[in-house]
């Protein structure tokens, strides 16, 4: 093998041997995705401030926006876990409704006995978690597709709530409970504090614990996770229980805010939650999830609603705008994501 070997690498033109592109890489990473969301939020705020002036840009209104976001926000944190793990939960809204009904009925029963309102809270959380447990068992061990299993729970839980409540609204009049939810802590309403605590807990669990690692792994490749020794089925049950638990927390918040338990609470919340999670940057096919993104997603939608309400635009216009935002956000993310992985 002598003269047949051509020594390679001609001094070819330097070409587009682009520099490492640190900025592009950053934009492709989670920081970049969140940056996009922050920009979107800033644009919305600017629009609000320009069109509605001081009515929008006041501290009170900012608190209103976040307060408005907090119930759906708590549900969205649970939804983030489900979607990251490669699942979907359509039943969160109606499970929340069911929880308000059961808990408020219990509260009415218990009112005469002066039992602590904490019991009502525990009942709401338990109902939510139990519904999630049923979802998880049916999906993981019954091998029913998550979409169908939780669709069945959506219909079933709503029906059950109507049956139990006889389609009437139960008023909660435990003054301690209502007083607690009317109170402020360091100038912020309790609802916001609950959202904050749930979001921080969710962030820690997803990013810093073995539970979170399993969640991402199972969503990224369930078979590889199983063969690496992760108990995938059991983990999926836990995941749906988390979604149920956050629905229960949301139910308590709803009871505190409206003082009433009714079967219609939480209607269509599942769609708002899924939209917030996906706009936030969690992959719908699983394997990547971001709590910060979800929080930003929730805030974007509630700011949008606020801007529209301040300008007296109808909910129909709002819904059209929401739809546009969802598509635009997903398109933007795909651009960032593909830059990151294909390295163009």
């Amino acid at each position, binding site marked *: *093998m002598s*003269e*047949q*070997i*051509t020594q*390679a*690498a*001609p001094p*070819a*033109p330097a*070409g*587009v*041997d*682009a520099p*490492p*592109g640190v900025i*592009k*890489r950053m934009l492709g990473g989670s920081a970049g995705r969140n940056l996009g969301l922050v920009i979107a939020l800033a644009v919305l705020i600017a629009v609000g401030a320009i069109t509605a002036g001081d009515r929008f840009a006041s501290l009170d209104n900012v608190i209103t926006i976040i307060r408005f976001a907090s119930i759906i926000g708590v549900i969205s944190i649970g939804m983030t876990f489900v979607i990251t793990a490669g699942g979907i939960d359509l039943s969160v809204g109606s499970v929340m409704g069911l929880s308000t009904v059961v808990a408020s009925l219990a509260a009415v029963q218990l009112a005469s006995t002066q039992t602590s309102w904490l019991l009502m809270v525990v009942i709401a959380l338990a109902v939510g978690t139990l519904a999630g447990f049923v979802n998880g068992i049916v999906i993981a061990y019954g091998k029913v597709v998550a979409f169908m299993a939780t669709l069945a729970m959506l219909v079933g839980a709503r029906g059950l709530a109507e049956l139990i409540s006889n389609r009437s609204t139960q008023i909660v009049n435990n003054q301690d409970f209502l007083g607690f939810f009317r109170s402020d802590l360091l100038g912020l309403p309790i609802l916001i504090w609950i959202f904050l605590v749930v979001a921080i807990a969710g962030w820690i669990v997803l990013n*810093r*614990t*073995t*539970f*979170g*690692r399993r969640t*991402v*792994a199972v969503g*990224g*490749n369930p*078979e*590889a*996770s*199983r*063969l*690496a*020794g*992760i*108990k995938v089925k059991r983990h999926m049950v836990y995941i749906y229980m988390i979604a149920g638990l956050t629905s229960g927390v949301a139910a308590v918040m709803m009871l505190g805010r409206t003082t009433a338990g009714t079967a219609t609470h939480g209607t269509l919340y599942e769609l708002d939650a899924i939209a917030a999670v996906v706009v936030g940057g969690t992959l719908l096919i699983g*394997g*990547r999830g971001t709590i910060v993104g979800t929080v930003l997603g929730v805030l974007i939608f509630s700011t949008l609603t606020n801007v529209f309400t301040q300008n007296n635009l109808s909910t129909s216009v709002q819904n059209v705008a929401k739809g546009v935002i969802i598509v635009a956000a997903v398109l933007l993310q795909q651009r960032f994501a593909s830059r*990151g*992985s*294909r*390295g163009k």
Partner: protein
Amino acid sequence: MITVDHSAALLEVRGLRKSFAGVKALQGVDLTVRAGEVHCVLGQNGAGKSTLIKTLSGAYQPDSGAIFWQGEPVTIGGPVAALQLGIATMYQELDVVDGLTIAENVFLGHEQATGGLLHVASANARTQEILARLGHSEISPRTEVGQLSAANKQIVSMARALSRDTKLIIMDEPSAVLDSHEVENLFRVVEELTMQGIAVVYISHRLAEIRRIGDRITVIKDGKTMATGLSVADTPTPDLIRLMTGHEVANVFPTAGPVPADAPVVLSCDALGVRGIFRNVSLEVRAGEIVGFAGLVGSGRSEILEAIYGARRSTSGTVTVNGTVLRPGSVDAAVRAGIGLSPEERKSQGLILDEPIFKNVTLSSFARFARGGFLREGTEREAAREQIEALELRPADPDLATRSLSGGNQQKILLARWLVHGTAVLLLDEPTRGVDVGARAEIYALIRRLAAAGTAIIVVSSEIDEVLGLADRVLVISDGDVLTTTNSSEIDEPGVLDLVMRGSAA
């Protein structure tokens, strides 16, 4: 310098470059392919072979460089453009659609139709013709592709190439998923194609195959052409290895003394079976022993490993590790008892491609590094870094996305996983699939070292010489039956094949 015969050059590539965010995958590749030849592209894992063919098939756009097709400069804008020129590609990962029939797969993307109505009968007839041309007239074009073996899926891939006016077929490691018989079949087909004047670019890490069917060789190292147009007949193997790796590689299996007679039995299976797949497998593996399973693809080799590991529920018999009987169908029980499995399909069964390397390495052990349920990624990363450096993973950056690694380097991650975890029993299903010569020798040595340290190991491979070279004892398996158990020194490759043929005839 070489004088290129331009009249016969079908494809010529000059100074091709391609970078991915920071990684220079190709930095000056030259290649000339003549009509009717089998042109082999050799190179280590990560050398850039797959990237090269992806630029030729239109999947990637090169950053710079020139491509000439039949003497004319061309840009290959996309997969369709490549097909229209007459370049067809069989990717490293099979790309057929399981739910469609063979004929539907073959004409996928260029269906014959009038006003939206498919000409099913004529597509079937043409597919039948092509299959006959490939020497497989026994396969019906109406068969659903999902039911086919990997070998036959490849035939479908080739038939798809021939359904167009193809002048060049690129095959990226086609033999990696085949057993020795099927490889023979593949070679026959390749010979027929070249006789019809079609050129084949053939990528493989098995030098013996290249000796069998190759005409000329191009060697790539670190994204650069080291040598091109070498004649297969005149280039000795050590020269090729030196060009590829830059140093000498002893391409031999590590030798080992006999396993001491008093070494304790670590793993034992007693009459293990999975209904309808394999039956009555009894074996014992002692500490420090390597047992190999030899047999054809589909003989039940992988399924036996899965049953031992609990990934498949056994319907009869027991698995015992260090005296503990394992619960059937429980991976968790197996892992806790100290068994590790490196699965056959690294992409679908082994790796989470979008996660960083280190998280894939610690997928079985991250909980052990954690304190009170809280991850300690720093410690994990360091443990992973140690192993990927020991295995010479390229690039050895624990934070890179696993997807961006070449096939052979991805394979090493699976080994690293169990090295970090530490196991008493290691089950290796195709541990060197897609691994280059240099790394292969390293992996063999590593497996031997693990055994010497007292691990009980079972190896499954489609390459019979690998099983025989590596294992102390061999089980020959055919159609779910263990035909014989023997010391690997007492049987050779033809002997194994002979047994298998007689076994499946019986």
